[in-house]
């Protein structure tokens, strides 16, 4: 079954190579205009730091990781937070135009809703640990650092994909 045509009237997804070149041009635009690449996990870190700063300001200021993410002064003056807000709005507009907006919980045929949500939340948490240690994720390390030929970013790509293949193989029933 063609997944992209799953929803009534939903348009199929774009050609991956065409979408990839478009994504590459967005990344190149970021290099040219703001002198940095794309990111996602850094925005989570900034929002986490701001949250700690509201609840326990002394803790936030004494923790160098949180303190570094409070430099912008306000969370809405943090570049990555503003960029990730754009990501959500851009994704929503794109999905709305292609009639792909729908409230669903995507899961394998044999996977229950609660199993899927536990795997999603737990997986997200482990990813969060990894992204902090690696100083970035698939956006900031793989895409951005990959294009800039950073050694650490290519180490990250190798580690992340190797581990993801092992986990996907161990849980191959979850998505069948």
């Amino acid at each position: 079954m063609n997944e992209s045509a799953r929803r009534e009237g939903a348009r199929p997804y774009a050609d991956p190579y065409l979408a990839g070149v478009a994504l590459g041009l967005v990344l190149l635009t970021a290099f040219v205009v703001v002198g940095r690449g794309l990111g996602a996990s850094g925005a989570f870190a900034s929002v986490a730091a701001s949250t700690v700063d509201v609840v326990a300001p002394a803790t936030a200021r004494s923790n160098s990781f949180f303190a570094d993410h409070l430099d912008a002064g306000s969370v809405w003056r943090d570049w990555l937070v503003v960029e990730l807000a754009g990501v959500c709005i851009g994704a929503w507009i794109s999905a709305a135009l292609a009639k792909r907006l729908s409230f669903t919980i995507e899961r394998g045929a044999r996977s229950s809703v609660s199993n899927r949500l536990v795997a999603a939340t737990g997986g997200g948490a482990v990813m969060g640990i990894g992204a902090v240690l690696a100083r970035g994720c698939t956006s900031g390390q793989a895409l951005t650092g990959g294009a800039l030929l950073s050694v650490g970013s290519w180490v990250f790509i190798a580690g992340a994909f190797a581990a993801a293949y092992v986990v996907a193989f161990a849980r191959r029933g979850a998505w069948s």
Partner: protein
Amino acid sequence: MAPFSEFGVLGARGVLIAGFVIGIGFGATLERSGLGSARKLMGQFNLTDLAVFKVMFSAIVTAMLGAFWLSKLGVLDLSRVYIPETFLLPQLIGGLLFGVGFGLAGLCPGTSCVAAATGRGDGLAVVIGMFGGVLLTGAVLPSIQRFYTSTARGGYTIPTLLGVSEGVVVLVVVAIALAGFAFAGRIERRFRAD
């Protein structure tokens, strides 16, 4: 001369507005390619749909070639583009942990936001889990500071590591990507049949 932010073309407010616009482009291209769908992403790891590889590597090659040639033409000063710093061991261990989470969640941080924004509850769950993981790790990070800052290499690129010119590395990455694209269809056909 670019980057514009480094040469006074763009002020602090302009950089933020540019960030918002660039984010819209980033989110829209991820959504268009279908990477906001965990099922599609898992196709990469079950080898039935290599969209992640195709999208990521055509993006990396496009941006890499663009940055390389704009720098050669003297339009873009690459020394003023921020290169993610290398910390070998934390990035290897962080990468492995990240991959475990990625394989479980079926979405990465950016694509989980795309999934959540387009109505997927599993995407929202990944966003919430991710936030918790970052918060907890950030809180305990001072106690593992030695590990976190170990094997630091600064802005360290593959051409520097190998002692070859940037052009050679760019050429090799393009060749590897093209070879991967040529094989991708064959791999998908084989694993879809199973």
